[in-house]
Structure formats: structure tokens, C-alpha cells
């Protein structure tokens, strides 16, 4: 990515006035900056690793939960509205697609919650070595799945069907 212009060719000494000449003689300034500054590598060139995946998942689940709060508030407002509207919303929530959405919502909540606990651990100054950070990330993924399943098993047990 770093073409750098003629002045940066290996084996050739860069002339000290190159940058100024680019800036002053018609070349757009942005091109000058692009050639002079190191570029941040793009996401696609990284090999995926687990702490990166959980970092992205933490933000993604947060965004999903932001939208999902609307569902909880919808259900609360329905309960405050009256029996017939509540039955309609409760029926949607209890349908197979409603349960699928709520199952996904549960998992997102558990993943984001455990991610938050992971951040508290870091804030307390622990878990920064690569080995510990990887263990925490895998625990986050495994824990979110286990907790989600336990919640739904408990829910179905409580409903008795």
C-alpha cells in the first residue's frame, strides 16, 4: 500500500523536499498524506482469533439488544393497555417465530452480560496475558450458550409443557 512516490524507492535516497513539492505543485494534499502516513491494516488481512471474535460479538449483541428492548417495552405497554391487546402480543411472543426471536434475544443478552463481566475483570487488572484473554473469550462463548439453554429449560419446566 505504501507506494510512497519516487522518493521512497528502496536504495534511493529520499529527497527532503519531496513532501513539500507534492503539496505545493498541483498534487492533491490528501495524496501526499496517504503516501507519507502509515495506513492502518484493514480487517480482512487479519487471521481471526477468538478475542477479536468476542469483541465484535460484544458490540453486535449490544446493537441487537438495543433493538430488542423495544420488544420488552411493547410487551409492557400491551399489559398496560388491556386484556385483548395483551393476548395479541403475548400470542405473537409465544408463537414459534416469537420463541425463536426470544431465544436469540436470550443468547444475545447472556453473551453481552458475560462480555461485560469480562470487561470488569480487565478493569480490575486481570486477564491480560494472551493465554488468559483467550480462555476468558472461550468461557464467554461457552457460558452464553450454556446459560441460554439453562434459562429455556427452566422456562419450559416452569410452564409445564
Amino acid at each position, binding site marked *: 500500500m505504501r507506494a510512497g512516490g519516487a522518493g521512497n524507492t528502496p536504495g534511493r535516497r529520499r529527497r527532503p523536499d519531496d513532501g513539500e513539492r507534492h503539496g505545493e505543485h498541483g498534487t492533491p494534499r490528501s495524496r501526499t498524506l496517504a503516501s507519507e502516513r502509515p495506513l492502518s491494516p484493514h480487517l480482512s488481512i487479519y487471521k481471526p482469533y477468538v478475542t477479536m471474535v468476542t469483541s465484535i460479538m460484544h458490540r453486535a449483541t449490544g446493537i441487537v439488544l438495543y433493538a430488542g428492548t423495544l420488544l420488552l*417495552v411493547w410487551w409492557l*405497554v400491551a399489559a398496560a393497555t388491556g386484556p385483548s391487546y395483551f393476548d395479541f402480543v403475548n400470542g405473537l411472543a409465544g408463537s414459534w417465530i416469537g420463541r425463536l426471536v426470544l431465544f436469540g434475544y436470550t443468547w444475545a443478552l447472556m453473551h453481552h452480560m458475560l462480555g461485560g463481566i469480562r470487561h470488569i475483570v480487565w478493569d480490575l487488572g486481570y486477564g491480560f496475558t494472551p493465554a488468559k484473554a483467550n480462555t476468558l473469550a472461550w468461557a464467554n462463548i461457552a457460558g452464553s450458550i450454556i446459560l441460554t439453554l439453562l434459562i429455556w429449560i427452566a422456562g419450559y419446566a416452569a410452564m409445564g409443557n
Partner: protein
Amino acid sequence: MAGDDYAAVTARLSHPLTAIFMLGVIVSSVVHMRIGMQVVIEDYVSGEGAKIVWLIANTVFSAAIALAAIFAILKLAFGA
């Protein structure tokens, strides 16, 4: 509570401790939602104008959702 009928749900939500707990859940969640989404907007929306519009939309949405939930909880708590 999920899956219960109207009478059971409204009875549960009308208990003062449940209502206070639910108010706490809603307020803390919406505050967290708002500041979290603010960081996402600041990270991904380029352009000052668009950024300001999205930040205002975030605040308006958060306020609206919190008000709706608080109203619903209080109505149920005070006897819907």
C-alpha cells in the same frame, strides 16, 4: 411470568417491589443502551452533520422507549 395470561401478568407487575425493580431495570438498561449506541455512532458515522442527527435520534429513541415503559409500569402498579 413469560407465557402467563393477562390476569397473572398484571397481578405480578402490580406488586410494588416488582414495579420498583422493573423501573430500575428499565432506567439502567436504557441509560446503558443510549451511551453504548452513542459510541457506535461516533465510531461509524462519518460526517459531522449526520453524526449529530444520529446522536439526537439515539437520545429521542431512548427517551421515548423509557417513558413508554415507565408509564406502563406505573399504570399497572397503580391499578390498571
